[in-house]
C-alpha cells in the first residue's frame, strides 16, 4: 500500500543524518541562562518558609454564592454564640457583682428595665427573642437531619426559609404582644 511506502520513506528520511531535514530531540533542550548555586537544605527550607508568607489566600466566603444552606448554618452559630455568650457574661458578672459593687439581682434589673423607654424595651426584646427563636427552630431542623429526615435539596431550602419566616414572626409576636 502507498501508506506503507510513505512510512518506509519517512523512516529512511529520519535515518539519514541530513543537514536540512532532521530535527532531533536535542533541538528542544531547555537552556537555562541563570547560574545556580548550591544551597544547604536548612537554608533552602528557610527560603521556602519565608516564601510561604507571600502566598495569596483563595477567597472563599466572599465568592460563594449566597444560599439558605450556609447562611442559615452561619446564622445558627452566630445566634448560638450571642445567646450563650450573653448567658456566660451574665453568670460571671453575677458572681463578680458583690466584689465590684454592682447590683444584678432580679429586683434591681427589673427596676432598671422598667425605666427604659418603650422603644428600647421592644428593641431589647427583639434582640433576645429573634436569636432564641431562630436557634431553637433551626436546632429542630438539625435534629430532624440527625434522624435522617429532610435531606432532599428542595426540602432543605423549604425548611430553611420556613425557619427564617417563623423566627421573624415569632420574635415580632414575643416582642410586641407577649
Amino acid at each position, binding site marked *: 500500500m502507498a501508506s506503507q511506502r510513505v512510512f518506509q520513506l519517512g523512516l529512511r528520511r529520519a535515518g539519514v543524518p541530513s543537514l536540512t531535514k532532521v530535527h532531533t530531540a*536535542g*533541538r528542544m533542550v531547555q537552556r537555562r541562562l541563570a547560574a545556580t548555586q548550591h544551597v544547604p537544605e536548612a537554608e533552602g527550607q528557610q527560603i521556602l518558609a519565608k516564601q510561604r508568607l507571600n502566598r495569596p489566600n483563595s477567597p472563599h466566603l466572599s465568592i460563594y454564592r449566597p444560599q439558605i444552606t450556609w447562611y442559615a448554618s452561619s446564622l445558627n452559630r452566630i445566634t448560638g454564640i450571642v445567646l450563650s455568650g450573653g448567658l456566660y457574661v451574665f453568670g460571671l458578672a453575677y458572681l463578680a457583682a458583690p466584689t465590684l459593687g454592682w447590683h444584678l439581682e432580679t429586683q434591681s434589673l427589673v427596676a432598671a428595665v422598667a425605666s427604659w423607654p418603650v422603644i428600647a424595651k421592644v428593641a431589647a426584646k427583639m434582640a433576645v427573642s429573634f436569636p432564641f427563636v431562630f436557634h431553637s427552630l433551626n436546632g429542630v431542623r438539625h435534629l430532624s437531619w440527625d434522624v435522617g429526615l429532610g435531606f432532599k435539596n428542595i426540602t432543605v431550602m423549604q425548611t430553611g426559609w420556613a425557619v427564617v419566616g417563623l423566627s421573624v414572626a415569632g420574635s415580632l409576636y414575643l416582642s410586641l404582644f407577649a
Partner: protein
Amino acid sequence: MASIMRTGLLRPAFQSPAASSRMLSTFASASASATIKRSSPLAHQLRPQFVRSTIPKTTRVAAFHATRRTQILPPLPQKIQGTVNDPAPVPHPEYTHGSYHWTFERLVSVGLVPLCIAPFAAGSLNPVMDATLCALLVLHSHIGFESCIIDYIPRKRLPVLRAMADWALRIGTVLLGLALYSFETNDVGITEAVKQLWHA
C-alpha cells in the same frame, strides 16, 4: 493522504524551526544541525504573524485580583515540618471524642426542646425543672463553644492559644454553673427572671 509522488506536501511539515522555537518556552539549541538561522530573512518569513497584535491592550493587563493586598488574618510564622514524602497524620480514634460525644450532644439538644417550650406554656417553672433547664443550658453552651474553638483555633497551627481557649472555656463553664446555682438558690431562677424582665 500525502503520497510518495507528492512529497512536496510533506516538506512544509518538517520545515518550521523558527516558528516552533518561538511558540515554545524552551529554546531550541542553535546547533550545527540547525537549518535556518533565527535571524535570517527566511526565518522572519516563516515566523507566524502572531495573535498578540490582535488582542486589545486593555484585556492583556491582569487587573483582577482575587486576594486583598493586606490580609485580614495574615499568615503566622511558618515552620517546615517533615518532608513532602511523609504521610498525612491520622488522629487516634477515641469514642468519647467522637461517636459518644455526638450522641450526648444530640440528647442534650433534644432534652432542651420541651424545657424551652414549657415556660411559655406554663408561665414559670418549678425549681426542679428550672434547675434541669439550667444544667442542660450549661452543657449545651459548653459543647457549642467547644465546637467553635475546635473549628477556629486548630491545635497544630496555634497550640498555645488553643490550650488557653480550652481552659478559659472550662473555667467559664464551671463558673457559669456556680452562678446559675447561686441565682437559682438566692434569687428567683432564670425562667422567673426572664418573665419579670419581659413584663417590666
